[in-house]
């Protein structure tokens, strides 16, 4: 098939000028885009208001999608449960027996913990969620990992606040609009979370790998103590994330750390909860000292380590 000849305007001066103007605008658009790109790489929050407005407009579509997702998952889960009913029943019976024993131990530990804390005079800050919402969209085709949350600044959501689901940490808010907010997921490489091993408090930090898994880096060098199946929870250092939220489960042990799967896959989360910043004063102080010290040599969020 030969190409269509409609790009040859003949002798019409007007059509010739029209084509020339098209080229000029196209090249100007390319250059303008390059300029905007440099601006938005230097200052990532430069266009947050425009993005916020766009998310507001697309919000109904996203909410419908979120409900479809929940319904679709329950259908698939129901079918899966039918096929696995017998095996699952046996496994669950065993698990319940084990869990009952664990629960009794937990009760005893809790009581002991309360008494010890009372002795030391420590008061735990009451963590009351800021808002609850659904994840209504995600950047599924970009290498950056953002999600859009269906709650915004009118519900009290502010940039920096951590977001969690029932199963674990999802990420933190980075931009807010009136009714939507943009969440930096834990799997984004820019998101660094200080964690500790749930079993013994081994300090580490996790960093997104942007392929759905996260890299676990240890703070202490030496023999790698990680085991498959180790659970890491937030440690509360840095003052941003409240301690004790599950983040990752180790699935691969490397010579200097490990690779983990998310404790809470954002695709499974029906509702998510926005929590207040754990220690706002510490975060502000760290931010101020970082600004005074100039840019950090490597990407690390407020106070990254333990």
């Amino acid at each position, binding site marked *: 098939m*030969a*190409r*269509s000849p409609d*790009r040859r305007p003949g002798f019409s001066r007007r059509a010739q000028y029209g084509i020339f103007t*098209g*080229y000029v*605008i*196209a*090249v100007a*658009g*390319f250059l*303008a*885009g*390059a300029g*905007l*790109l*440099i*601006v*938005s*790489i230097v200052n990532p929050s*430069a*266009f947050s208001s*425009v*993005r916020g407005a*766009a*998310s507001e407009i*697309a919000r109904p*579509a*996203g909410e419908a*999608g*979120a409900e*479809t*997702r929940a319904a679709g998952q329950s259908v698939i889960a129901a079918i899966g449960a039918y096929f696995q009913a017998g095996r699952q029943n046996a496994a669950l019976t065993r698990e319940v027996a084990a869990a009952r024993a664990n629960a009794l131990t937990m009760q005893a530990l809790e009581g002991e913990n309360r008494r010890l804390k009372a002795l030391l005079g420590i008061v735990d800050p009451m963590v009351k969620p800021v808002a609850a919402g659904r*994840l209504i*969209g*995600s*950047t*599924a*085709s*970009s*290498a*950056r*990992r*953002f999600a*859009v949350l269906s709650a915004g600044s009118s519900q009290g959501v502010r940039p920096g606040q951590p977001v969690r689901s029932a199963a674990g940490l999802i990420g933190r808010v980075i931009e807010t609009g009136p009714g939507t907010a943009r969440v930096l*997921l834990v*799997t*984004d*490489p*820019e998101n660094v979370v200080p964690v500790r091993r749930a079993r013994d408090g081994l300090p580490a930090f996790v960093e997104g*790998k*942007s*392929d*759905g898994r996260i890299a676990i880096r240890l703070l202490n060098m030496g023999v790698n103590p990680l085991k498959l199946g180790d659970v890491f929870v937030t440690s509360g250092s840095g003052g941003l994330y409240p301690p004790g939220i599950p983040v990752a489960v180790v699935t691969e042990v490397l010579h200097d750390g490990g690779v983990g799967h*998310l404790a809470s*896959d*954002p*695709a499974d*989360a029906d509702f998510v909860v926005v929590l207040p910043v754990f220690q706002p004063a510490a975060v502000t102080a760290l931010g101020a000292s970082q600004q005074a010290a100039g840019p950090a040599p490597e*990407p690390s969020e407020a106070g990254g380590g333990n």
Partner: protein
Amino acid sequence: MPFPRLPELPSLPMRPEDLVPQRINRAPSPLLASGLPWLSVMLASLAAFSPVIASAPVVPPLAFMVFLAWRMLRPSLLPLWAGLPLGAFDDLFSGQPFGSGIVLWSAAMLVMDTIDNRLLWRSFVQDWAVAGLLMSAYLVLSAGIAGLAAAYPLPLVIGPQVLVTLALYPLVTRFVALLDRIRLLPLRSV
């Protein structure tokens, strides 16, 4: 109850043209004829608000694919500068740093123009090859720009995404061809 035999079932219209009963003294609606390409690309940009919350880049860049398919099917329908507004709209939802869509989509339009001037003949396989090159370059450059913005060299996780994109492109062109027939339905009476 007897199973209904095939001829008794009401038949669906097989072609979009069958939806319009009268064809004489009718012309395509100008709004639909020129607006449908823009609208379909913008709707594809909203695929970020689909029910899938992905924790890895797996979904093909649908908006860019629809955009390329329109450009290949009707070379003069979208103006040469269409990458500027459509890329900007895609940037609002794609999660890329603002401006990356504008740059890459405008560049794709200019490259397509050069290719059209060089290769005088068109065929299915050639279109697919050209689109495959453009889409792979788009994905690699997008990941590179995202890595610049994250100040962290992003790992090459886009391999599966590139394969899915290449495989899906003929389907997208098929869909765009259907939209093109809907676009030219004679809805306006002359």
